[in-house]
């Protein structure tokens, strides 16, 4: 599903170049549940940003489902992102001024789906995540776990093939964290590819492969066979 070849990310400053990612070579198959781990500053979030096409300034080759992302302009990358990718963040990142239902509707509206269809999709996801009773509430009226639940619901509402979860349980206590991880596992079992970033070994165990990053290098887990 994903093939990264010699992907590099560098920041240039007056003091010289700072490498954030170095020669990343990575293959991820359809249906994988990948965990990326590593210390702070290892480049985990940067790698997520590149895979999620939120970061455009990098070098190398990136193939997503037969699409050569590195050859696409920004507009086409946005299209690809909208079609295949859902994001979950540590800080939930729901929009405070929108209700739960509106937050769920937002990614659909960016996909130019008609209103009637969107309403149906939002109703389905509310039902599926058992948050129908919360649909009119604003994020600040929900607990952290509930907010993250909505964030996951928002990530999956567009039926993405890939979910990128950047420390999805980082702000939750353990019982809420487990609920979210179970949910991600369920989604993975239903066929969605998942890449998560976590510092927690227990949550890492939910995945089928762990990739270790350090100082911008993949030090372990680049392929099922090990580091490249």
């Amino acid at each position: 599903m994903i093939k990264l070849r010699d992907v590099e990310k560098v920041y240039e400053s007056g003091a010289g170049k700072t490498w954030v990612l170095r020669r990343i070579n990575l293959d991820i198959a359809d249906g994988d549940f990948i965990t990326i781990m590593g210390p702070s500053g290892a480049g985990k979030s940067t790698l997520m940003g590149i895979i999620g096409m939120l970061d455009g300034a990098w070098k190398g080759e990136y193939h997503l489902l037969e699409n050569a992302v590195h050859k696409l302009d920004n507009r086409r990358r946005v299209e690809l992102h909208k079609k295949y990718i859902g994001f979950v963040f540590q800080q939930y990142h729901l929009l405070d001024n929108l209700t739960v239902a509106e937050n769920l509707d937002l990614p659909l509206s960016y996909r130019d789906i008609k209103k009637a269809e969107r309403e149906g999709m939002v109703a389905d996801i509310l039902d599926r995540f058992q948050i129908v009773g919360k649909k009119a509430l604003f994020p600040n009226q929900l607990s952290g776990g509930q907010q993250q639940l909505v964030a996951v619901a928002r990530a999956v509402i567009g039926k993405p093939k890939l979910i990128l979860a950047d420390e999805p349980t980082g702000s939750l206590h353990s019982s809420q964290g487990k609920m979210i991880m179970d949910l991600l596992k369920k989604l993975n079992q239903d066929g969605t590819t998942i890449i998560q970033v976590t510092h927690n070994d227990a949550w890492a165990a939910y995945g089928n492969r762990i990739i270790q990053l350090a100082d911008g290098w993949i030090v372990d887990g680049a392929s099922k066979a090990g580091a490249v």
Partner: protein
Amino acid sequence: METLLQDLRYSFRVLRKSPSFAAIAVLTLALGIGANSTIFSWINSTLLNPIPGVRHTSDFVVMTEGGTARSPIPFSYLDYMDLRNRTRSFSGLIAYDINPMNLTGTGKPERVWGTLASANYFDVLGIHPILGRGFLPVEDQKPGGAPVVVISYRLWQIRFGGDPSVIGRTLRIDQHPFTIIGVAPAVFQGTQTGMRTELWVPLMMQQQIVSGTDRLPLRSETWLMLLGQLAPGVTRGQAQAEMDLLMNQIVEQFPDSHLGNNAVTLYPLWRAPFSANTYMYVLLPVLMAIAGVVLLLACANVANLMLVRSVSRRREIAIRLSIGASRWRLVRQLLIESVVLSSAGGILAMFITAWTTGMLGQFIPPTNIPIALDFQVDRAVFFVTFAISILSGVIFGILPALRASDMAPVTVLKEDAGSAAGGLHRARLSSALVVTQISLSLFLLVSAGLFIRSFRQAQRFNAGFNPDHVLLASYSLFPAGYTEARGLEFHRQLLAKLETLPGVQSVALASWVPLGYVSDSLPASPEGYVPQPHESMEIAEATVGPNYLRTMQIPLIAGREFTVNDTGTSQPVAIVNQKFADRYWPHQEPLGKRIYAYGVWFTVVGIAHNSNYYSLSEVPQPFLYLPIFQDYYSTTIIHARVLGDPLAYTTAVEKAIHTLDADLPVYDESTLKLRVQVASTGQRIAGTFVGAFGLLALILAAVGIYGVIAYTTRQRSHEIGIRMALGAQQSDVFRLVLGQGLRMILAGLAIGLALSFVLTRFLRNILFGVGATDALTFVGVAMLLCVVALLACYIPARRAMRVDPMVALRYE
């Protein structure tokens, strides 16, 4: 469309969450947009719609014969008829003259202004009376043979209570019976922009309306204004060429009655002479341009507010990007928010405009002509305001929207809430906007300073007479049925009575008031003077009574004033001004010289000091005074120099008049001081409005610089904390922050001064007594703005001094 509505709904919600920001932005924009919509409402009511009720006014032109736009000369009836019969350039050519008329008969006696008009008047203008009819061609044929009148809608309502059976009733005008044949539509008030007339009477009735000789058969009597509708496909230039040709033929045919310059000039209605547009077309475009700068300034201010505010919205925008929003979609959403703000500003601006549009009329001082500037907030004003609002929203919204949507969402989403990395770019843009604001503000303040100084100069200007403590009051004898002999006797008896009133120091009668809207001139030949080829011998003139110069305090250089003994049976005499003597009789003794006018020789008995007659900025011009007891005027203005407040003498003067004739209306009671303010009306309007714009600019600049310095100081609190932890004193921090502000201020002032040097030259035509690059104004205004801007920096600088390094570092 549906997502657009969604963005719109979200915009309302976002703005409701930030009521203070929304209120400040909407108010700022409302003031900027309101300034523009107000000035546009004036342009719309004058330059764009010069004749309310008449469509396609761009097809019409006004014509003058000789003279200038400021002091134009009308046409004789016979010249008009010749031009009308021979022209092919015009599909219609109308002639008219505006006069005061006394209404008697039904109801209370009343003095109104009416129009003597050619019979094709309503047909050419395309005005259809709402009751009855307009004039018929037959009513243009026999002098005295068409005693019919079309009345205004207003008169119909006020005097006849809107009675539909008014047609056919008799109205006594100037003691003569006229049959009412029509009622004009409510919107139509005549053909002179800014003047309202209530009656329309055929030209053939001029002898019943205007005192004096029968003007119809006299080619030398120039009294008719001409207005023509260009034939389809004919340009103004082509019509001008034809009129030049036709007028030359007429002059060659009748040289004796066409002395001087007889060149025909065609004016579009938006800058027609004899109307308010003569003044408006100079003033209003300048005001509109300045209001445009005010709006730009308001936009820069709101753009800065949006930029500052976008910091707190970075997370939201990053989330939107991360869940699939394209940059264009985000820019669109942010622009919709801007347009919602500017539309709210536009709505408020409409209310402001409804209140301010009538203000211009209040600046017109009392005068003896029926000024009726009826400014309306109509559909055109609404649409232009709407368009300005939308445009403003895009102008101030686009930069912040582009900047806000240009981010790396991953980085932003990993930041702690409230962190503001990336603020440096924003601060740079903000600083650039503040520099723009300061430079635009400086230009506005310089313009305001120039106009205010100009107005003060106009107020202080010595026009050659003393306007203080002079009461003016008018009466008109012809409409009251007086013959010339009875009128002269009335003038004489009244003067004797007024002179004895306690507190009256000096009193005189005159046909005019200087520096007003009206002027008179006559073709005259100074004895012994041989005119240059094509030199106009049309000389400005006023008819005045005994003691006029003394009452006006115009110095008499030589000779004597007129006396009550200068009558129709004595030698015709005249007083000329110094310029007249210097121009026509250089190095000669002017006293005793003669001037040929009206078919008689007038002997010069006095030389008056030059004064200003038509405007404050005029160069001295030859001027001729004729005695009122020889050159009879039935409509006369009393000039009474008194002790104390002139208006306190109004009752006494009325009483004196009514002891001679209890029914004679006294009107236009005012003071000379007020009436001559007409001359400085432009300066007063510009001074007031541009002054207000300047004040607004000053406030906006102060708020803008305060906002940016406060914002960047907050951004730099970490840096300031480090500096203080490393040993920086409070004074160092103060200097750091103030220095940042000072750099922006100096850059803004430098650009603003350069801009002002270039742009103020366009104000030159409206300024009076002050140069367009007046150093005092430039330096004074720059210093004022500098002080205010530094004060705006002072508050955040003081706040920065109190930064606790531990708190600042922990926060970060």
